[in-house]
């Protein structure tokens, strides 16, 4: 079945030359976009058009384009990763938009994610949180047999659900407080349920939490917006576990 063609759409996109520059919105009109295109393909077509007109193309993050790398971002029409659920921007299709529609494209607006250029932001802050405690100690030497470590199916599944986090930043971008709690919860939860994660269990939540505060993310107010925006549908129940891990560690101090 042939995809419908959007004869004309308007893209209102944030343009900012560098982190220091004062940005502003520019509106571009593109014609004949197939609804079968992904959102990023539409952005490619827009950039091709801009280059042909001798203008600067829009800088945006992307890599795998199959929803697993966590590079793509974009806040589209008031939704992180656009008006579809459980997808990243690269998996968003133009069939979610109508002919003649104006589509507003903004970068993640998080103080801890400064804009690099246009709609591309610097998410190094997430790496720093991860480095503060999101790791496990392993023995050197021969590889142990995985089957020698008993883990219940329920725990394995729950850890895996948390490990689905791709670190895209949609949670912090959506949160009205720009809090990174869902990211933090996923990264703590993926270890908390497994025996391998117990070595650093006493310090992990504390160090990662302190780093999040230090980097200027806000505090969680349990609105639940993050789990709705998360392309991997990570539950805010993991946030309760993060809080539990943190308080347990604090009480042991």
């Amino acid at each position, binding site marked *: 079945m042939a995809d419908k063609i959007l004869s004309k759409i308007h893209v209102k996109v944030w343009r900012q030359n560098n982190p220091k520059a004062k940005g502003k919105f520019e509106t571009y009109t593109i014609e004949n976009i197939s609804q079968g295109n992904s959102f990023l393909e539409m952005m490619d077509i827009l950039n091709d058009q801009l280059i042909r007109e001798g203008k600067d193309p829009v800088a945006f993050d992307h890599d795998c384009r199959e929803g697993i790398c966590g590079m793509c971002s974009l806040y589209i029409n008031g939704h992180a990763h656009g008006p579809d659920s459980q997808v990243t921007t690269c998996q968003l299709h133009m069939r979610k938009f109508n002919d003649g529609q104006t589509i507003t494209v903004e970068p993640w607006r998080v103080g801890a994610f400064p804009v690099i250029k246009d709609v591309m932001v610097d998410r190094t802050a997430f790496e720093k949180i991860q480095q503060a405690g999101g790791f496990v100690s392993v023995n050197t030497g021969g590889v142990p047999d995985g089957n020698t470590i008993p883990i219940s199916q329920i725990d394995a599944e729950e850890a895996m659900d948390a490990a689905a986090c791709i670190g895209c930043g949609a949670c912090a971008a959506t949160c009205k407080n720009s*809090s990174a709690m869902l990211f933090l919860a996923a990264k703590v939860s993926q270890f908390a349920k497994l025996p391998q994660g117990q070595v650093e269990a006493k310090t992990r939540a504390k160090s990662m939490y302190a780093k999040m505060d230090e980097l200027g993310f806000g505090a969680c107010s349990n609105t639940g*917006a993050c789990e709705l925006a998360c392309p991997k549908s990570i539950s805010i*129940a993991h946030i*309760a576990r993060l809080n539990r891990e943190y308080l347990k560690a604090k009480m042991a101090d």
Partner: protein
Amino acid sequence: MSSFLSATLGRKVFMSVTGLFLILFLSLHLTINLFLIFDDSGNLFNQAAHFMATNPMIKIMEPILALGFIIHIIWAAMLTWTNMKARPQKYASGDQLLAWWAPSKNMFILGSMILAFLVLHIFNFWVKIKITGDPLLDHPAGTGIEMHNTYNLVSNLFINYPVYDLIYVIAGLLVGLHISHGFWSAFQTIGLNNINWMKRLKCLANMIGIIFAIGFAAIPIYFLLKF
């Protein structure tokens, strides 16, 4: 300990614990207030008010309650300020994910409105009972023992000033909305939640919110309709 006090989660724990404590207080408050409806002679309510004013346990709890309110309010302002600073530039397209009126998004606004009401409420009753006194309080309470006729003070306000009825009904609804998020959110913050309890706690929070909203709003409406 100092890092816990300055950490955002530490502050949130204070919010949760004081919030749950205030819910307990409101439950007691609502129970006593409902005596206004169930006994038109005012006897029951006057006895309860007299008990609250004279019982030594309640006397001990009074400053603790005030402290609970103060911590809840000041810490809320500090956290909200931190949270506002975390997003220096707002979205032009806004937030299309949660409804504009969602209590979870508006806790500080709801809380501020409740605080404004609280000030009015204290001037309506507490100041008159404890400090300035009021001729309405001096009517014989009809209980045999010498005590304030608090029922007279309350019913006079609700019967003769419809604007106060409206304010008290709105305040009841605001408290209900605030608690419909606050109750389950408090458990989430102190880590007492998981995927199964999420549904139960949210359901319980909505029920408590509805009970408080209807309970507090019913009292001025009762006086307005009956008298």
